[in-house]
């Protein structure tokens, strides 16, 4: 088991190498000089040159990348060009906000999708099934920033129920989380539905019914438990969607998470901040995937046994 986790973590190294190179390279090709952004409008050409020198922007690309990676080896992800603050520290300050948003979004998606999936599975091939699936598809069919704007129009402007943006109390989390969460609902609903359909046909369901379990018990205890693995896979697969959705939702709702951080940093050509954040995002994704895998093991003793054999 531990060896399996270690192996997965070692896989992170090429991920870091390749992502950092690609991002660094892309940022260096992207038009736009960070020194110009930093120097302000009144700067003289000599002063801009000085800033460039100070940031090491005059070095050839390979040298800059080399220096950056040297820093990485010692755990130093560099300093933001703009704020002059430590990239890792800044990222870690923002991360809890995004995780909070992502967590709430997944929670909302699960709360909506799993019951809906079960419902449509039970009523397979009826109009209830069709209606339920179309409802779930809606979330997947609109740009989530647009949903965010619509929610702002309805719930903030017209009804005045929730704040329009910024991070305040728990109420400020509701609209952004619904925005991101609704987009995840379609896949989770569909997976729950098909997974439940498979399970409902199994013999042990009939057995359970024959034993005199109530229908509710049959479905939740015997059905859902066995249908869970594909559902968790579906949720795991959606994690990159959570991050993507957050970039936009964070812009619409002025939510101070990593999505907005990356977007702002790109527009300021803050290469260390962009590279560092995207590397951290990739690492985060890998860790989330690992956690999802470990959860399978928890739910499915067969997989657990497999890991143990390897480990």
């Amino acid at each position, binding site marked *: 088991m531990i060896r399996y986790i270690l192996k997965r973590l070692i896989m992170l190294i090429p991920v870091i190498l390749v992502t950092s190179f690609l991002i660094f390279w892309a940022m260096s090709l992207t038009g736009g000089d*960070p020194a110009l952004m930093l120097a302000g409008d009144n700067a003289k050409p000599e002063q801009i040159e000085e800033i460039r020198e100070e940031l090491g922007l005059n070095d050839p690309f390979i040298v800059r990348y080399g220096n950056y990676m040297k820093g990485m080896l010692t755990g130093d992800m560099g300093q933001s060009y703009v704020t002059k603050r430590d990239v890792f520290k800044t990222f*870690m300050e923002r991360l809890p906000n995004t995780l909070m948003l992502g967590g709430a979004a997944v929670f909302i998606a699960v709360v909506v999708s799993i019951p809906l999936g079960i419902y449509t599975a039970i009523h397979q091939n009826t109009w209830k099934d069709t209606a339920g699936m179309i409802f779930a598809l809606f979330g997947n069919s609109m740009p989530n920033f647009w949903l965010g704007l619509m929610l702002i129009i309805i719930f903030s402007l017209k009804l005045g129920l929730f704040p329009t943006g910024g991070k305040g109390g728990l109420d400020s989390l509701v609209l952004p989380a619904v925005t991101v969460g609704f987009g995840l609902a379609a896949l989770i609903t569909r997976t729950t539905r098909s997974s439940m359909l498979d399970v409902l046909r199994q013999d042990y369901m009939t057995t359970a019914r024959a034993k005199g379990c109530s229908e509710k018990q049959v479905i939740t205890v015997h059905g859902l438990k066995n249908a869970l693995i594909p559902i968790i896979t579906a949720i795991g697969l959606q994690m990159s969607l959570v991050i993507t959705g957050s970039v936009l939702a964070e812009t619409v709702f002025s939510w101070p998470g990593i999505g907005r951080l990356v977007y702002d940093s790109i527009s300021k050509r803050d290469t260390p901040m962009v590279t560092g954040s995207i590397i951290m995002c990739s690492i985060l994704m890998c860790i989330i995937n690992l956690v999802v895998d470990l959860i399978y093991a928890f739910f499915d003793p067969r997989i657990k046994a497999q890991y143990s054999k390897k480990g």
Partner: protein
Amino acid sequence: MKKRLALLLSVAMLAASLAGCGGGSSSSGGSSDGGATGSGHKESLIIGTDADINNLDLQKQQDATNNIILKNTHQTLVFFNNGSQGDERFGPCLATSWEFKDDTHIEMKLRDDVHFNDEEKTPMTAEDVKFTLDMAMDNMAASILTGYVQCNVIDDYSIEIEIESYNNEFIQSLSSVPLSIQSKKAYESGVEDPYYIGTGPYKFDEWVEGEYCRLVKVEDYWGNDIPEGENLAPGVAEVIEFRPYIEASSRVMALQAGEIDVCVNPPINELQYLEEDENITVYEQTGTRLFYFGFNVEKEPWNNETLRQAVACAIDRDAVLEAAVYGKGTLQTTILNRGLWGFYDDMEGFDYDVERAKSLMAEAGYANGGITTSLSYASGSPYEQIATIIQSNLKEIGIEVTLEPMETATLKSACVDGSHELFLWRWNEDSKVDFVYRDLYYTGSGSNYHHYSDPKADELIDTVATEKDPELRLAAAQELQEYLVNACPQVPLYIANLVVAYNKNLQGQYFYGGGNHDWRHAYIAE
């Protein structure tokens, strides 16, 4: 079961976050609407800004939003008055008086009762001033302090500044926020973030990037005895908090919901909602931000002056003003920002006149039009709107314009490299004319995106900067403006109005046309 699953998922998310979560940020305390304190004002003043606060190290940043915050915590040698306190725009602040000994030496007397807001209440002396100015020359702030050579300490409270050559506006430079006086001792003691130590009536309490920056009133502020209403008087509100609301609509709604007390730059199309709201005042005055349309005069065919003038005549600036800011602005002919010294708008210029434009086109050798070109600008409002109007205007005289919206960073690089053809940009200056003439038009200067170079213009710019006789200087300034308008490297479009919306009980605010407002004495009356 459902609950258990949800719980499990949140645990999973948490586990992922634990992977490297060292410090973690403290969430906002939500101390927003503090109760009344009995002295007739609300405890806190909350200001919604339109941009993130990104760096509070004075000399290493150039950002308007940072400067607005730093104005409360730090003080400059010279005070820049917004025009409400007499005609003398630059008055004493930490320096009490100054005098040119000769062309290159300025003797300056300092206040002797100022101390820094550190534990020991270290007095501010000439050493700190010298330290601050010397340090500026090694930092980004050097661009403001051009011409500075060195600073000699005469005694504890007087200094002599040496400059390269006489300049009419050197003293003005010393009113810039990045040149606020910092503590030499703080830097030498090796304390973390020494730039946080200032002499202002407020000091930093907490800054959470992207969320808020909170300042608290300094209890033993050195100027506690200075009477209310004076520039250096102590603050009123116990807490001033700055919160970025990047999304303009959110900022407006936050003001209406009472989450913030001040909303800077509310979008013009939403002003109606604020004007209807009886708890809110919408303040409006002529601003200093000039939006303009420029040519890269090094590129064919825009090196043709007559052609440039034809384009100037073809632009319907009323329509531009209407589309960009719903008419909330002022048209002008000259290239100088309104309100600056020597502003001169009494010239013919190039008003919207399609017939004249067509005849100028013919004169320039393009009777049938047939020019295709591109217009670069920073994506988003108001450039998007300006560009759309200009594109259809220029079509009338046979110029096909492709719009090229880009990110600001890309635009700036393109403008510096000279790979652009036409462009839109803005210039915001409310104190120094040299920062307009020299930066935009002098041969080879950094923001001369026109790549304009003309010996006569250069000479006039130098005259305005160094001529001591006020009459000769004014004459040179007027000639220069007329010369530049005629040469037409840029078409000045409009000066945007300054608009601020706030809680109707706000008092003690001090607005600048350039947007660099002073909140030190502002509070919400109760």
